[in-house]
């Protein structure tokens, strides 16, 4: 009685670990189509509004339209990193297996939006400021943020043992979170070439409503799209991990009779 279920206990306990991810798969499978549809719908309104129907700026002209991509990407780069820090803290403290996976799947997407933020900013900077790049506090701290995203994505995948990689990545993500307030307040603490935030207070934004509203719609649309992409990736990762667990279990089962039969057929 006590000896027979001992080998079966291992797959059972590892399956127990995926009980929660199983619920996640069912729930996210139901949410994901709606999330993706909402993202497409909101972006379908916001992008044409911002890129065609909104007015130009009085001195930037049509170049102001880069704002509708650049600003949402900047917000997502920072908001996404805050999410990464939360997921990493949950993974370190509560050892939540989904938090590890979420952090792992978040970082490539975060690196992509940060790269888009830097690229669109550079494209705007050349005609407006007169330079592609300057080493001021804002631009440099966002570049550091980009390297943190890339570093996390690489570190998590650099270990043979995924749990070890996840722990290292979580520590890097939390140490890197110190950069977030630096990015946010760099334009206030130091003088920079980059302009300060336009949306400091809700009631007095530095943008005219004809520019503000399409920006907010674009930001909502890109946020929904970001969430949908990350959710999709986490789902894929959960399924991948399941397949790996099943393959391992199958391999163990295949190994067992060979060991159980002592010198049955020497190959």
């Amino acid at each position, binding site marked *: 009685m006590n000896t027979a279920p001992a080998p079966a206990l291992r797959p059972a306990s590892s399956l127990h670990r995926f009980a929660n991810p199983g619920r996640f798969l069912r729930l996210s499978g139901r949410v994901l189509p709606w999330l993706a549809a909402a993202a497409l719908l909101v972006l379908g309104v916001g992008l044409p509004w911002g890129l065609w129907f909104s*007015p*130009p*700026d*009085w*001195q*930037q002209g049509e170049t*102001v339209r880069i*704002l509708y991509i650049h600003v949402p990407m900047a917000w997502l780069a920072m908001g996404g990193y805050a999410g990464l820090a939360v997921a990493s*803290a949950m993974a*370190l*403290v*509560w050892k939540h297996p989904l938090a590890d996976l979420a952090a792992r799947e978040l970082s490539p997407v975060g690196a992509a939006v940060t790269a888009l933020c830097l690229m669109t900013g550079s494209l705007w900077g050349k*005609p*407006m*400021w*007169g*330079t592609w790049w*300057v080493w*001021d*506090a804002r631009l440099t701290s966002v570049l550091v943020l980009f390297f943190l995203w890339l570093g996390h994505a690489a570190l998590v995948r650099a270990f043979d043992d995924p749990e070890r990689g996840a722990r290292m990545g979580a520590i890097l993500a*939390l*140490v890197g979170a*110190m950069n977030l307030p*630096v990015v946010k307040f760099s334009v206030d*603490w*130091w*003088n*920079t*070439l980059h*302009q*300060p*935030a*336009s949306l400091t207070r809700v*009631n*007095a*934004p*530095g*943008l*005219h*409503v*004809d*520019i*503000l509203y399409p920006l907010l719609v674009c930001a909502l649309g890109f946020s929904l799209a970001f969430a949908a992409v990350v959710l999709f990736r986490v789902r894929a990762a959960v399924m991948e991990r399941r397949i790996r667990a099943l393959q391992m279990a199958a391999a163990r089962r295949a190994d067992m009779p060979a060991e159980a039969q002592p010198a049955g057929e020497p190959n």
Partner: protein
Amino acid sequence: MTRKRKRLYVLLLCALGLGGATALTLTAFQDNLVFFRSPSDITREAPPPERAFRLGGLVEQGSLQRTSVEGRPLVRFTVTDGAAKVPVAFGGVLPDLFREGQGVVTLGKLGRDGVFQASEVLARHDETYMPPEVADALKRSGHWNPAQGPAPAAAEWNTLNPARPGSGG
């Protein structure tokens, strides 16, 4: 439960230590992390000659002169921060946003004659964005002269709707 508690406390302690270290480092860098120096900084503490630095401020109204020396364009203007001003000479291509009243950051050296010889001029954009009709309406009504400095408080204009007849006339 207790192990989770313990991990949480260790994490919070690390965050506190790291946060404190970051804060101390940033305060130490407070004065060194400036991208540019203002005319007041320059008059208060003149930088050593032949030392390149960045000078930032507003292009003073009425100070812009476009001349040419030996067939090459030379732009002269004054950078001010309200309290002090520094004359600047620059021979090169100015960015689109360059105008009187605009914020600029110039890289160069302070000459012995007190004129800042710029090798690069960058325009600074402020945090206001408005359609041309709104800017025109503010200028017409006398609320704002862009050559004199930044736009008035955003609450005055960010919901302004320049009526169609107004923009037509």
